[in-house]
């Protein structure tokens, strides 16, 4: 079979940084080709070369698509041939409908007037193809991230896609939505559409990929044909990081003490729909030195629960009792929650965690300025020392603490956010998706930090969509579904199946209730 795409000896450098070295890469018709590698390995750069973001002449090497050498000047050239890339950050306009978004650039029209019936009809067809039951008039903002992702794919289909490139499509999806999305890719394969899947999630790779290419430091270091040989996750990880990752999670000997944070009968209502109860009479406890995981599907109310605890940052009509070290605490505002000893590390680093344009130092001290500012005047040397201290302790890789936070990689940004909260010296830390969008090596470091925090006698709560992660680091895992806690497992007893079953059993129950 001749390849639909062949990239020959592609090299690309930025100044003196060699981002790609002599990479060759092929995709066959009707194949799902997984591209894996650590952050900075060159995956996105390779895809930008392919899609014309870096035009011909700005890289070395050749691109051969459907048997001809192509010299793309920009992304329109590659799209015209059916090479469509879907970026991690979705390019949808929130306040427009699904139909308007799909046909934003190429609406069927007569004399410049959009044929709305045709748009509606074709959108319906496309949505059916990606398995979405929404009306074409639904606004994007009313869809969850999973469905938005499917709209992006529908948009790609509308452009007669031949090669679909997905850059970490499931990074912000829960297991069910991820599975749905991967099923779509498999369905497209049947129709002869090839896909390139960039991902950090190895279970997805082994599930759907026909071939795997591993990039490391801008080189292609391994190619695996999944149809010919078994896919060993350890082999992939080893190629990615060139070190044995037999221990993906640090060893743990928990030293668990008395309860430090107790929540009783906690209920929260939706801010926009105040009649909807999102968190339902939750009882929850963390002990000193304990890492508690909160598992559940996206939309189960995990983040909402955490943020409602942290100074009522989410929800209305919040009721329930919260105690820290046995005493009732006032958590009615963020400053009060911080004073009480609570810290919340957000799932959305860039929007909610960091001030990207400010330097590392300012970000670290932001939540505890009083410590370096006696009488309201900042002691710049005390501040610098505090920030540099965390930089060393957390091994934040930056040129100095005056570097802009926005310039750091995901893992290092996360360490900055963690430093900010450590500086407030919390008794309880809630970490929401602490390793989202972070590469394997940095993940390990974050896990180590989480363990150190617990070992120092703090209570740690980890919310995560990646079940292996929860299983790997937590002493206890609570399962949330539809705003209620539906199961709890001690770390060693928990398995993915048990957690899934707890969720599904509850789903079945709630469905029965509504039926009755």
């Amino acid at each position: 079979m001749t390849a639909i795409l062949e990239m020959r000896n592609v090299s690309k450098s930025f100044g003196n940084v060699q981002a790609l070295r002599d990479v060759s890469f092929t995709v066959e018709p009707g194949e799902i080709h997984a591209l894996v590698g650590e952050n900075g390995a060159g995956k996105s750069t390779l895809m930008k070369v392919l899609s014309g973001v870096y035009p011909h002449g700005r890289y070395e090497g050749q691109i051969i698509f459907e048997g001809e050498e192509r010299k793309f000047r920009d992304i329109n050239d590659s799209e015209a041939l059916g090479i469509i890339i879907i970026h991690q950050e979705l390019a949808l306009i929130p306040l427009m409908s699904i139909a308007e978004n799909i046909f934003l650039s190429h609406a069927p029209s007569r004399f410049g007037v959009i044929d709305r019936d045709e748009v509606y009809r074709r959108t319906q067809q496309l949505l059916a193809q990606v398995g979405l039951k929404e009306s074409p008039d639904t606004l994007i903002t009313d869809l969850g991230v999973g469905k938005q992702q499917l709209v992006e794919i529908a948009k790609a289909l509308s452009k007669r896609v031949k090669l679909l490139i997905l850059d970490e499509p499931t990074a912000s999806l829960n297991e069910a939505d991820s599975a749905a999305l991967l099923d779509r890719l498999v369905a497209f394969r049947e129709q002869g559409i090839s896909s390139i899947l960039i991902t950090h999630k190895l279970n997805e790779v082994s599930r759907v990929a026909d071939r795997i290419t591993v990039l490391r430091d801008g080189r292609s270091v391994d190619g695996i044909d999944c149809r010919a040989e078994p896919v060993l996750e350890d082999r992939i990880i080893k190629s990615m990081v060139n070190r044995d990752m037999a221990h993906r999670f640090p060893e743990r000997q928990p030293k668990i003490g008395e309860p430090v944070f107790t929540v009783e009968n906690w209920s929260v209502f939706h801010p926009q729909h105040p009649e909807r109860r999102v968190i339902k009479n939750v009882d929850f406890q963390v002990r000193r030195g304990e890492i508690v995981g909160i598992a559940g599907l996206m939309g189960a109310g995990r983040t909402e629960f955490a943020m409602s605890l942290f100074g009522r940052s989410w929800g209305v009509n919040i009721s329930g009792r919260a105690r820290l070290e046995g005493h009732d605490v006032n958590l009615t505002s963020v400053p009060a929650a911080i004073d009480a000893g609570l810290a919340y590390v957000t799932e959305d680093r860039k929007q909610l965690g960091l001030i990207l344009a400010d330097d590392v130092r300012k970000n670290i001290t932001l939540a505890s300025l009083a410590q370096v500012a006696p009488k309201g005047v900042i002691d710049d040397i005390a501040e610098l020392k505090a920030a540099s201290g965390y930089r060393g302790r957390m091994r934040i890789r930056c040129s100095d603490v005056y570097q802009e936070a926005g310039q750091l990689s995901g893992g290092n940004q996360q360490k900055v956010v963690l430093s900010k909260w450590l500086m407030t010296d919390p008794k309880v830390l809630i970490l929401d998706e602490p390793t989202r969008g972070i590469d394997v090596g940095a993940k390990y470091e974050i896990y180590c930090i989480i363990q150190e925090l617990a070992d120092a006698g703090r209570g740690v709560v980890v919310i995560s969509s990646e079940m292996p992660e929860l299983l790997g680091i937590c002493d206890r895992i609570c399962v949330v579904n539809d705003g209620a806690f539906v199961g709890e497992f001690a770390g060693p007893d928990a398995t993915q199946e048990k957690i899934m079953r707890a969720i599904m059993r509850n789903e079945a129950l709630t469905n029965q209730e509504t039926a009755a």
Partner: protein
Amino acid sequence: MTDKTVSLPEEKPHSGFLKNNLRSYGMLMSLFVIMLFFQIMTDGTLLQPLNLTNLVLQNSYIVIMALGMLLVIVTGHIDLSVGSVAGFVGAVAAVLMVRYHIDFPLAIIACLIVGAAIGAAQGYWVAYFGIPSFIVTLAGMLVFKGLALALLQGQSVGPFPATFQKLSSGFIPELFPGAAHLNPTSLAIGAVLTLILVYASVKGRAREVEHGIEVEPFGVFAAKNIVLAGVLMYFTYLIASHRGLPNVLVIMTALIALYGFMTRRTVVGRQIYAVGGNAKAAKLSGIKTERLVFLTFVNMGVLAALAGLIFAARLNTATPKAGLGFELDVIAACFIGGASAYGGVGRVGGAVIGAMIMGVMNNGMSILGIGIDYQQVIKGLVLLGAVCIDVYNQRR
């Protein structure tokens, strides 16, 4: 995945220094070049002591309002009402002092309170109701322009008591009236101020060295201080050789120092920048974002009131047209001075330099006899150019 972070180039200790500070020095350089240009074009009229004193008096109210506007812009908002508020407060001052003969200290205090109340009223809607500041202050602009007109019944009201006029047209008293040409007191104040500044910067450097913090090379440091001291002393000399330091200049300098310190070194200042940089992240870090936004508007109101008083005292009458269009000069000063329209970025020094650039251009073009029509065209282009350069520099 970002390609930017593939590997961070190791920066040599000092290579980054000039680059990092080029932006703030670039502003100063622009001001210097513009001044030099007009100094040559006007055959030295620009820097004559009389003209320099006038320059200060003419622009003081713009500079004072720019201090407040900078904070508003840094939080990511805008205040279009400052011109109208300044005019309205001038009218209030005239009514209080001219019609009701209220003593000027009491009237000044009352006017500043009126300014604070106006700022609070507008800030309330912006901060706690989330109404875009553009709309709230556009409404305020119309309301207070109208109220000033109503209060003055369409007429000019004046003159003010002589003591109040001193606010704008007065000079600090001369302690040694013997010297006819130069004012020794003003000269001495300038010299002391210069010494304090140089001492503070030497001390600061020593402190950083003591704690093992990288500092700029000594040559650069020394040159910077010598130039700074020289320029300061030269201007002091020029000002002193007319009638000494104007009262307004004293007020203005004190306010610049206060706001400069506040923005760079205090917790409140840091938090204002954080709110502008990322309000949601700031809020989740325990910063009371609404209250800070509210307070920046209150502060703006007080400074607009002060500017209104100074302007009224300078004209020695309150007119319904006072303050017309001030907001544009003030906002332009902040943006020329490097503030970002997206919030989170901007310096007090930049805003002051921006105001001075506008002032020098106004003054210089007037001396050259350029009509008010082309003056506006040129000012508009300078604003656009300054912001373009800034955006270009950030993209690099």
